[in-house]
């Protein structure tokens, strides 16, 4: 997995609440059996009209936000289906960090598995960053995972919480499966004990 240490880039404002995974990547793009190439279809139905032309006033189509690397969003971001295609599309577009007052749980998990940092902040702080993001492409934010801080374009610093294990995995780019396989002996002994305790399973 790609490491996440610090990121400085353009942040796009997306104040809508309950942005669901069908909006992030509509189902017609789940037909792939690969993980890559989904970035062009990120937010497809909000981003393009039926003929495939860009809708000019959608935030990621505006000249200032074409190179967005950070998304500032409304509450309950990523609700809906478990499709990992949503974080794959976000990452493929070039976004590595999403900041919101709350996230849906499966999406939140899926982000960490793909080198994306989802950050939960109180609404007031998200509002502050939202206004900063609205300034456009000169308003670059910096997200520092090691120090757990976000620095807005005007120098204001906001700290954030992150689960220590997930932080460690992101900083080091660690693959969960490799880590778990190191606990193979514990899994073996659990399995042996469980097959005694619950032999019907």
């Amino acid at each position: 997995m790609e490491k996440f240490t610090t990121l400085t880039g353009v942040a796009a404002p997306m104040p809508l609440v309950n942005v669901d995974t069908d909006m992030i990547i509509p189902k017609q793009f789940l037909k792939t059996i690969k993980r890559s190439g989904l970035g062009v279809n990120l937010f497809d139905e909000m981003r393009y009209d039926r003929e495939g032309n860009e809708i000019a006033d959608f935030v990621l189509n505006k000249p200032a936000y074409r190179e967005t690397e950070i998304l500032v969003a409304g509450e309950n971001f990523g609700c809906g289906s478990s499709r990992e295609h949503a974080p794959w599309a976000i990452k493929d577009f070039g976004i590595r960090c999403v900041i919101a007052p709350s996230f849906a749980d499966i999406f939140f998990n899926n982000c960490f598995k793909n080198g994306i940092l989802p950050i939960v902040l109180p609404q007031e702080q998200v509002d502050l960053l939202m206004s900063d993001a609205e300034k456009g492409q000169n308003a670059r934010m910096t997200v520092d995972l090691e120090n757990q801080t976000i620095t807005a374009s005007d120098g204001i610093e906001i700290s954030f919480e992150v689960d220590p294990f997930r932080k460690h995995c992101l900083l080091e780019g660690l693959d969960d499966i490799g880590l778990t396989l190191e606990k193979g002996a514990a899994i073996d002994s659990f399995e042996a004990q469980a097959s005694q305790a619950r032999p019907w399973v």
Partner: protein
Amino acid sequence: MAGKTLYDKIWDAHLVHEAEDGTSLLYIDRHLVHEVTSPQAFEGLRMSGRKVRRPDQTIAVPDHNVPTTPGREDPANMTEDSAIQVAALDKNAKDFGIHYYPVSDVRQGIVHIVGPEQGWTLPGMTVVCGDSHTATHGAFGALAHGIGTSEVEHVLATQTLIQKKSKNMKVEITGKLSPGVTAKDIVLSIIAETGTAGGTGYVIEYCGEAIRDLSMEGRMTICNMAIEGGARAGLIAPDQKTFDYVQGRPHAPKGAQWEAALNWWKTLYSDDDAHWDKVVTLKGEDIAPTVTWGTSPEDALPINATVPAPESFSGGKREAAARSLDYMGLTAGMPLTDIEIDTVFIGSCTNGRIEDLRAAAEILKGRKVKDGMRAMVVPGSGLVRAQAEEEGLADIFREAGFEWRLAGCSMCLAMNPDQLAPGERCAATSNRNFEGRQGYKGRTHLMSPAMAAAAAVTGKITDVRELSATEAA
């Protein structure tokens, strides 16, 4: 020490390892797999030379992207992308030696209907699937999580899942339901009350007299939509109804094993002195047939309500509601019963089981769908379909003017050609009314099977209690 919740008990029985910060490794009993969220996971295994740790506990079935029209055993009758995904699952099931129900098998169906039907889902288990509606299996008192594709790969390789323990939430529905009110109405009312993020970070246990009174199928409808309320899992403590449902199913324990299992299952309930982080209580008597008006499952109201004004909301929800009304083509203040419907979809893992079809057929008996109405029934599995044919329900649907399809997810997520056209308005028994969910610019109103059948007859969103009162022709 405080007692344990049901969730605590299942968690403890599956804990392989817990780090100091609470990051835990949870053992997974059953892993269900479908064609859309698994190809990248199997590909990952191949690339790293890993095997499936427990092929005997891994069950695959294609459902999301399969056609529901006849002749689908022949890939030539599938769209190209369906054929590719189904072929990939065929091959992965074979290569990795996992249980498999191909489209040609009568047991094929929506993964969350097949699991319980075949007895794979048992009380006290941990069950995962790369699909958010895995919560359905919680109706058996199984801890059931939806997971992403990376986690699918993780479970395939290790039979474990990395988790942090959620908080405990109790949702109690007291008293009795009024006539015409179903499990779907309960769960839509719960989500309207708590919001789609209300359950985030929690595992919800549903309890109370109205939940106890539900059949296993009704309980599955409730747990199915736990995810729509933000919770990753929903649970209902197993009882005699659960045991009766499970007993005799192909993969349920038998003989002495059954007795041993039963002994443990009977300990699976929340202790009286267990600690709850959040409690929500609704009165069963207060719940009416409920429908959604907007583009989030929390946008649900009793049938006698009117479409709300965006100004009645605060914060970001105000903008979202305005956007919803615009998308749905509705005006604030109009009665829900004035909303005209073009299409009716009965099916999905929420309401595609035999009792759902019976409830809809009951309304449709001796009636016809409104002229010009497109109406389809997609049974949740081949076995549900066969049973409905045997009971004469299929004839009732056909005579009323419904299409009678083969099993699959179909228009619940509209990956296959079963889709709404832009602007088309659908009464659906599924679980999501998101923008574009059932087709680009399609408009979805969620409701129970009986309510959807009533809408098919009148052409409008209708209070099924009024229709039942009038005589069928």
